[in-house]
């Protein structure tokens, strides 16, 4: 398969062999040579040659095509997590670029196959996406283009309401608990320790009993609520409980499935790109480059991993961090002895000649995601060496400035930005809100406001599915706020809750 020229085929075999001797482990990888238009087309479909029809792919294409035409950007690599992996090469790239991309792609493929978070993704996604396409086209025939398009718009606007960390949960969670049971209100007996009368006050203090009783009461009333626990996978909840037409349910399910498929790529952006860059750099510089190609390679490699001031380049951060880990485990710069050593000179010369670097980074690529990766391996030394900083708006000067270079703060900000990969954390809190079958969504406050205008518009979409009024509980300017849409008009109500805003 694939349509590589004999020359590229030979290069591919060479690169593949080198990658395998290093221990990279990937599904069969099919390279397709395509021209710019085809590449843009595939890219606007998120890498899949066949998907359901939707105008936003056309919009994507328009923009890609334009910026390619104007020479603003071009796509270098496009690789799909699938078995076999598919990767696209642009036909008119020079050979050195093709080699670079192939080496890079093998890095990605290894990551797809071995990283834990990709474990549950569908490896026949190309087929599945095509199936989705057929399905949607059939619905178009049944209920008409406009109805399907409207519904796809709604579904797409909610596709970030999934529980990315439940990647291993395959089936829809059964949120509907068995009802029934006894209807009578149970009296609450707080269990108490046995004690002699005169000791009772000390063994079972009344404040404790009171506290315990309140807790149990809350637990009991919570259990009567529906859903009994906040549900993070809002889409699944809607699929299960919203009054949808069968075809609507199907579309919502397939949008959800695709969202879960793409989720790990968002969770491991830094690692994935870092890992692939690490390998293209290593394979190219040690094994594949000819003397004549070295300048072009250096140019394109640095183009990929260059750091724009004031912006995090995942390629750069990833590759540097992997190299740092490799160096640390080669020299034994980890563990208690290293950590407690505060002799600067000794630390600088520290080298236990362990040589475990390569093995370590292979382990790392297996079980970490971006958050745990940075949490564990981003050291103060690394932050300083990489010149990382926290920026923010200076209210006084009205411009974005460097606020801080303190490694702890840098790390905190980085991790915060990655929480729930940059999406607000939203759950279904109550599906029988105000005892009227209304839907209450809860935005978990982690210090950053959601955009109210967008939220109102999104809420309208939620209402279109739920049919009854819907609400979103969030915080705006430090005050609790419930945004609502009842099918006719938006409204917003302040509550008396307060959260503290971070000083900036």
């Amino acid at each position: 398969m694939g349509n590589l020229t004999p020359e590229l085929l030979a290069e591919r075999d060479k690169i593949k062999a080198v990658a395998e001797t290093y221990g990279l482990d990937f599904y069969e990888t099919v390279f397709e040579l395509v021209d710019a238009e085809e590449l843009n087309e595939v890219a606007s479909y998120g890498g899949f040659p066949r998907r359901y029809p939707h105008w936003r792919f056309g919009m994507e294409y328009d923009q890609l095509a334009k910026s390619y035409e104007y020479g603003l950007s071009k796509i270098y690599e496009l690789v799909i997590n699938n078995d076999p992996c598919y990767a696209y090469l642009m036909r008119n790239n020079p050979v050195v670029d093709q080699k670079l991309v192939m080496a890079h792609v093998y890095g990605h493929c290894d990551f797809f196959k071995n990283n834990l978070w990709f474990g549950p993704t569908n490896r026949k996604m190309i087929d599945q996406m095509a199936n989705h396409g057929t399905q949607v086209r059939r619905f178009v025939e049944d209920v008409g283009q406009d109805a399907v398009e409207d519904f796809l718009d709604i579904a797409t606007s909610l596709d970030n309401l999934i529980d990315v960390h439940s990647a291993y949960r395959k089936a829809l969670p059964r949120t509907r608990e068995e009802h029934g049971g006894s209807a009578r209100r149970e009296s609450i007996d707080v269990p108490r320790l046995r004690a002699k009368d005169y000791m009772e006050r000390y063994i079972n203090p009344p404040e404790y009993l009171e506290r315990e009783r309140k807790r149990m009461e809350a637990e009991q009333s919570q259990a009567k609520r529906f859903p009994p626990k906040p549900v993070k996978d809002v889409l699944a909840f809607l699929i299960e409980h919203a009054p949808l037409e069968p075809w609507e349910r199907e579309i919502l399910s397939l949008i959800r499935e695709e969202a879960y498929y793409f989720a790990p790529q968002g969770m491991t952006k830094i690692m994935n790109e870092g890992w692939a860059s690490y390998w293209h750099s290593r394979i190219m510089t040690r094994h594949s480059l000819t003397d004549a190609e070295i300048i072009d390679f250096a140019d394109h490699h640095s183009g990929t991993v260059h750091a724009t001031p004031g912006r995090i380049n995942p390629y750069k951060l990833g590759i540097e961090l992997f190299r740092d880990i490799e160096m640390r485990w080669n020299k034994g710069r980890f563990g208690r002895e290293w950590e407690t050593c505060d002799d600067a000179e000794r630390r600088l010369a520290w080298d236990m000649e362990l040589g475990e670097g390569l093995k370590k980074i292979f382990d790392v690529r297996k079980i970490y995601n971006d958050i745990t990766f940075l949490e564990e391996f981003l050291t103060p030394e690394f932050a300083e060496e990489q010149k990382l900083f926290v920026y923010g708006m200076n209210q006084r000067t009205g411009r974005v400035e460097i606020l801080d270079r303190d490694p702890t703060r840098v790390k905190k900000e980085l991790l915060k930005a990655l929480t729930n990969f940059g999406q607000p954390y939203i759950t279904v809190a109550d599906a029988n809100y105000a005892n009227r079958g209304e839907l209450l969504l809860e935005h978990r406050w982690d210090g950053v406001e959601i955009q109210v205008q967008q939220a109102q518009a999104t809420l309208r979409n939620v209402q279109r599915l739920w049919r009854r009024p819907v609400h979103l509980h969030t915080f705006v300017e430090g005050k609790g706020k419930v945004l609502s849409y009842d099918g006719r008009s938006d409204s917003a109500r302040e509550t008396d809750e307060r959260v503290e805003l971070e000083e900036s």
Partner: protein
Amino acid sequence: MVQRIDQDRARFREIVRGSVKKDLRKYLSSGELIGKQGKRFVSIPLPQIELPRFRFGSNKGKGVGQGEGGEGEPAGTGDGDGAGQAGEQAGQHVLEVEVGLDELAQIMGEELALPRIESKGKKTIRALGGGYSSISRVGPESLRHFKRTFREALKRTIASGTYDPANPIVIPVKEDRRYRSFKLREVPDSSAVVIYMMDVSGSMGREQKEIVRIESFWIDTWLRSQYKNIEVRYVVHDAAAQEVDQHTFYNLRESGGTKISSAYELLLELLERKYAQDEWNVYPFHFSDGDNWSARDTERCVSLMKEKLLPRCNQFAYGQVKSAYGSGQFKKDLDSAFRGDERVVTSDILDRDSIPESIRHFLGKGR
């Protein structure tokens, strides 16, 4: 690979079109689009085409960057994507789509129900077009028409009886050769000249000029979509008239009295000198606040129009922009002098919101 994307793309363009159409009146009365004009496109910001999502607001503020610089120095992030957002999320920027001016004119035409313009009766014939559309027996080898040549050779071999179906070898000789040749074709050509005249006397303020500017832009857009070959000229006048370039036209601020006849005289001179009567469709647009210097001058204007100008013009348009100082008398005078004359169209432009109506008034006759 089948170009599946074409369908989605077409659908997207349709949505863009619909949304432009919906907001057209807003665009028509604000200068917003004019600044975004490229050569053949305008880019239109379309916030509503992006699907809404629950996402973080801009007060996110902080982020992590990489690079040189001390604390308190600008970080040069622009609007700054935080880490982790890379790739997956589109930023907060407003989507801009490019719409061709032709398409825009078409949308405007539909929305304002503008008729297509009929050219003046006297169509000019001009030999402009043509192509290698005919065949000749002589010509350079590079233009040899292989199929025709072969056919001639085949005809000859069959006619002379040397054709052998079992061994169908046909060899063209010199006489068989055919060549493509250039043929001139006469194409009707329509060209138009638009002359914008503006009163720049002291009473025309900044807002009045802005209105003129916006209205002229849209009229221009429409006329350009109707004629292949269009020329635009600008005239400003107070007590005296002069021809200026586009930039000056919109930015000049003069003061002084108003003598409208000066502009009309200049217009007449321009038309006589440059635009032969039977070759050009002529569209003068005159914008003023309606304050003329004297009734005598107005009389002069009217007689100039009646005798000299109107026979040369497809339509004479006069737009009266309301200003704090203008009396608005000129429009009344024109209206009474040309009652029932289709060639003269006058319109009151009270404020920006009445621009669409005024455009419809000017262009709605299809002349």
